[in-house]
C-alpha cells in the first residue's frame, strides 16, 4: 500500500522560492570584491564571521596584503543578532555607529571606506607590497 509523506512545512521556505534579502555580510562581500578590482588584488579584503556569543554574530572586514606574507589588518567590525539582521553595530577606529536599516548601514559604510584612515592604510599596504 502506497503511503504519502505528510509535509507540514510552508512552501515559502523552499530555497528557490525565498526572496532575495540583502544582508550586511553580502554588502560587505561586495565591497571586498570591489577593493581587489581597484588595487589589482595587491590589497584584498576578506570578510570573516565569528560567533560573538549570546546569539550574536560578529563580522570582521580585514585588509590583506598577499605579497606581505598575507599581512592582515582589521579595518572595522560589525555585530548583529544571528537572526535579526538589523540593528547592526559598526566599530571603526575607536568610533561606534548603529544602523537600523540597510540604507543606514550603507551610509555608515560609505563614510568608513572613504575615511582618511582607510585610505592611508590601503596606500601603506600597496607601497610596502611594491618595495
Amino acid at each position, binding site marked *: 500500500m502506497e503511503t504519502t509523506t505528510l509535509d507540514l512545512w510552508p512552501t515559502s521556505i523552499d530555497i528557490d522560492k525565498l526572496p532575495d534579502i540583502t544582508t550586511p555580510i553580502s554588502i560587505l562581500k561586495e565591497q571586498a570584491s570591489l577593493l581587489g578590482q581597484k588595487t589589482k588584488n595587491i590589497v584584498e579584503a576578506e570578510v570573516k564571521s565569528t560567533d560573538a556569543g549570546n546569539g550574536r554574530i560578529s563580522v570582521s572586514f580585514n585588509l*590583506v596584503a598577499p605579497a606581505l606574507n598575507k599581512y592582515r589588518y582589521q579595518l572595522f567590525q560589525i555585530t548583529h543578532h544571528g537572526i535579526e539582521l538589523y540593528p547592526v553595530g559598526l566599530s571603526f577606529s575607536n568610533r561606534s555607529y548603529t544602523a537600523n536599516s540597510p540604507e543606514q548601514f550603507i551610509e555608515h559604510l560609505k563614510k568608513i571606506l572613504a575615511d582618511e584612515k582607510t585610505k592611508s592604510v590601503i596606500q601603506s599596504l600597496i607601497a610596502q607590497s*611594491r618595495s
Partner: protein
Amino acid sequence: MVTFLFWNIKAKPLENRIRRIVVNYEVDVLILAESEITPYQMLVTLNQQADPMFHHIQDRIGECEKIAIYSKFQNEYFISQYESNRLTMRRLKLPGIDELLLAATHFPSKLWWEGDDQFAESIVLAQTIRQIEEEVGHTRTILVGDFNMNPFEKGVVAANGLHGVMTRKVAQNQSRRVEQKEYSFFYNPMWGFFGDGSEGPAGTYYYRHSGHVSYFWNIFDQVLIRPDLLPSFRNSDLAVLTDDGDESLLTSHGLPDVAGASDHLPLLFKLDI
C-alpha cells in the same frame, strides 16, 4: 576545466610574455619557478585586463621561495598543507568539486648535484608527498615542476622515488609492491614528448653537453598525475608551449629562445575537475 601553466623563467623579467600566455591560453593557475618578478609587478601586469583578476597565492609562512603561484581563484581555495624551500603542497578546494592536492617543486640542479644526490633527494620528496596524502586522506594529487631530471632517471622512475611510469595503463594499477612495501604510481605523460615522434619540440630544455653523452633535448619540466586523477586528465590537454600566443618562444633554429624568453619551455595542462 581548470588550466594550469608551469614555467621556469630563469629569473627573467618575463611578466609581459607570461601575461600573453595567460590571456591567450586562458590559464587559471600560474606556477612559476625561478621567478624574481615581485608579486606587485606580476599582479599589475596580469590584471591589466584580466577578468576575473589574478591573486597572488601566498603560502602559509612564505617558506617556499622557489615557486610562485598566481591564480584566478582566491587564496582561500588554496590551503597550504606543506611548505619547504623547494616544495609547496596546496589543497585546492574549489566549490562543488572534489579537492585535489597540488604539489609544485623546483628540484636541485645538475649544476650542483650529482645524479645520486638527486636520486636520494627524490626519495625524500616522494616520502613527503605520501605523508601529506595520508594527512589529507586522498591521492588526488598532481606534482608539477622543474625536476632537473629526465623522466627516465632513477629519481623519477624508482618505486621509492617518484614512481612515474610511462603509460596510463600501468599507472591504473594504482601501486606495486617492492620488498613487502606498497608504492603508489604516478602517471608521467611527459615520456610522449621526447624526440620527433610527437608534435612540437623534442623536450622542454636544451643543453648541448661537451662530453660523450649528450641528450641535447631534456624533459626536466614535468607534470605527474596520480591514478585517482587520471579520469580528469586527457593527454591531448597537455602541451609544451612554443609560443606565448603572439610570439614564438623558440629561436629560428627551433631551440628555446634564452635571450627573449627562458631556457625552459612552459607546460600547459588542463584537468577536467
